């Protein structure tokens, strides 16, 4: 069975400091990995997915299949980055196409001014 682990419930960093939110997964197939973010009083939204290899709001994440990790990084944290971050693993179930997601329990990032 697939599993996503986010070891930190809370991560506090100073503004301008680097940020790394950890995510490890276990999955027997070829994984699709995502990072979702939930800002205060907003709905859950996609931040980035590994197949797009984009940098969104300065965040990047690299899939490391050897270490089964998909850590989220940003070189310089901003106050507006304070939010709840969820790592998720996509499982296409019985076939290709849409994915049901397995989420980690989330990491609350707090950026201190």
């Amino acid at each position, binding site marked *: 069975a697939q599993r996503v682990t986010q070891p930190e419930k809370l991560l506090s960093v100073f503004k301008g400091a680097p940020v790394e939110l950890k995510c490890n997964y276990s999955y027997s197939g070829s994984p699709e990995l995502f990072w979702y973010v939930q800002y205060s009083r907003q*709905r*859950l*939204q*996609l931040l980035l*997915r590994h197949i797009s290899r984009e940098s969104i709001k300065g965040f990047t994440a690299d899939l490391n299949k050897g270490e089964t990790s998909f850590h989220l990084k940003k070189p310089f944290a901003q106050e507006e980055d304070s939010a709840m971050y*969820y790592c998720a693993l996509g499982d*296409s*179930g*019985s076939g*290709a*196409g*849409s*994915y*049901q*997601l*397995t*989420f*980690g*329990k*989330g990491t609350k990032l707090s950026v201190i001014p």
Partner: protein
Amino acid sequence: EAGVTQSPTHLIKTRGQQATLRCSPISGHTSVYWYQQALGLGLQFLLWYDEGEERNRGNFPPRFSGRQFPNYSSELNVNALELEDSALYLCASSSWADEQFFGPGTRLTVL
């Protein structure tokens, strides 16, 4: 463009009752997913509907059921409510193999 909508926002029931939660996907999306976010358990996959059919379900008892209508909206039914069913229920929609867009959720409280 309107996002995913869910109703009601809050729902209060007593043990043993039935709850019905509703979700309207983004126009053009055929897949609807239901997730439960219970305190301490995180977001857990419940059900996935696509083109009116149930494609998969998570590790939940059969009293959690649902359906998808021809207009792709969806309903989640929870029968014989138990206290531990108290949670935020999130609905998400997507088009084929694309990003899931989430609704604001329905907060279900079981007394």
